[in-house]
């Protein structure tokens, strides 16, 4: 094909603008034809877009950047969760009532033995995890506050987030059980947090 690209064989016409640019590399030369208009529009359009984007998001700050949008959505999700809990009638009273339900408490005890005793020991007197029976609470002693700790965990202290694994029904049951033992005063780990009574 290189043999065919002999200049003398080109069908040059008056429509052509081909001016050969005055540089050459290994025999390769470059024409200076006009760029397609769509190409130029794309370039100018991109520049205008970049400018508007910059002003909109970073100069005026009118636009919502992805990170902010993410945080807003997380906020909304949290509110939905709270609303759902309230809708389902879950509040402090709900758990106090649940402690009266022997079957539920027994179920809670079963789950407690299976999952919690590794750190809180059999009577809830605590070893790695705090003593649950001494009336002192690190993160608050209201059932709803305790529920949050069981659901989401305390990663830095090694308390796992149980919501994923147990689901709401079993978490509720285990919390009901904990509420029945919380004033047992079993000798164990030294008290941590604030004394508190609900």
């Amino acid at each position, binding site marked *: 094909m290189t043999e065919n690209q002999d200049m003398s064989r080109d069908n040059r016409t008056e*429509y052509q603008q081909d001016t050969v640019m005055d540089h050459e590399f290994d025999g390769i030369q470059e024409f200076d034809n006009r760029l397609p208009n769509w190409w130029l529009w794309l370039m100018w359009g991109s520049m205008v877009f970049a400018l508007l984007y910059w002003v909109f998001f970073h100069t005026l700050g009118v636009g919502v950047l992805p990170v902010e949008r993410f945080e807003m959505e997380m906020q909304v999700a949290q509110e939905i969760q709270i609303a759902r809990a309230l809708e389902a009638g879950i509040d402090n009273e709900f758990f106090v009532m649940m402690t009266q339900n022997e079957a539920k408490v027994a179920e809670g005890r079963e789950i407690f033995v299976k999952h919690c005793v590794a750190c809180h020991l059999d009577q809830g007197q605590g070893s790695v995890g705090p003593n649950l029976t001494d009336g002192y609470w690190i993160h608050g002693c209201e059932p709803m506050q305790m529920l949050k700790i069981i659901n989401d965990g305390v990663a830095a202290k090694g308390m796992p987030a149980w919501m994923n694994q147990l689901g709401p029904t079993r978490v509720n049951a285990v919390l009901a059980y904990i509420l029945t033992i919380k004033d047992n005063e079993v000798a164990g780990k030294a008290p941590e947090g604030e004394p508190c009574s609900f």
Partner: protein
Amino acid sequence: MTEKDNRAARPAKRQPDLNTVYTINPDGSRNMLQVADVKGRWTTRKYFMYALLIIVYVAAPWVKVGNHPLILVDVPNRAAYLMGATFTNQDFHLFFFVLIGTGIGLFVVTSLFGRVWCGFACPQTVFMEGVFRPIERIIEGRRLERIRRNQKGGLDKTWRKLLKHGIFIFLSWNFSIAFMCYFIPTREMLHLVPFFPGSTTALIWSLFWTGLLYFDYSWFREQTCLIICPYGRLQSTLVDYDTVIIGYDEKRGEPRHKGADKGGDCIDCRRCVDVCPTGIDIRNGLQLECIGCTACIDACDDIMDKIGKPQGLVRFDSSRGFETGKSKLLRPRFFVYSVIILAMGALFVARATDRESFHVTVLRSQGMPYTIEDGVIRNLYTLHLQNKSDSARVYFIAPADDALAGHEGVDYIIPQGRVELDRLSDRQLTLFAMMSRSSYTLPEDFHFAVTDSISGAVQNIKVRFRGPRPARFDS
């Protein structure tokens, strides 16, 4: 009559040449081609190919292999399915083999036969030549009819254009949904079509793809192949003297001549130019714009039949073939490419079949290397366990060895020793290891074992037990 005289006799009309892109006018505006109809053996073969490939391209996400689609990149759920195999985001590195393998595969084919992919199999061509251009042809008529009507204007032009673009938009919309089935599971798609209720994101994507396809097939067309497509622009490095390309037999055709009785076989009828969908003159030799669509072969063969000359003035042959009459198909670069592609294929298959069914990483708890309480050093680890298999699994986590056995008060706490995980799901778990402070000397490694209770596969994860530097080293 010389070639120059021949041209001078014609009205001053721009012709395809080697120095400019014919589809771009000198002022930068677009020169829309009006491509002439062509019939012949290659065209027939191509239409069979297009019909087959349209079915394949549209149906691929709907066909099930095992429980999963033949091909699906499930972006929202971070999983991909290919020929019955499941890939998660941890397997993303395998995409490297797919990309390189496809690239080299194209290199092999290109070095042997030029741009057959472009002319026969590329979705751009398949839908352009197999769907959109035939519809345009039906509504607006043959090449000369179209040109005349476009110049004349009027109601006759308007209704045809409106009808054509209406159909184009409708088809683009359908093909955009067909395309999105590669990314959204078809069972979900069935609930989403046609107006994507409840999923604004999907709706915006479908509008975006509809707009892009409509723009591409109604106006942009060959510009995609000429200017956008990276594969097209690599041609000059992939093709060599022995590559089979579509070319013009200069020895036989020149000098061009009106009338079949004298000169070369080319009668300069310009059929090959009129049928070219990218606007080149194949008689100028191999050009970057040529997508190997074979339209000029059929056009020329037809003319040769009519003037009683043998077919094949424009044909598939190598540059060497056109010059010497001899071709050489197998060349060193074919073998080099083949070795690379076989190696890539083997690596991909090996890696894809030898993947672990679950993935474990253990990290030390952030910002707290250890804690000491009542003379006991405690280390807290976070274990991330991911089920990469295609079914729900139960895993057991336990200390794997006696590496710390020489110390006093060694104990492990594994609050979640039994973990159930759904397919492709993952979880963070907490682990403790403990040791008497008096017994601690230096950091030591030990292992946790994670066992898949169904497959029996075990992974031992090395972790390090750390504590305070014993007093006796402080001297």
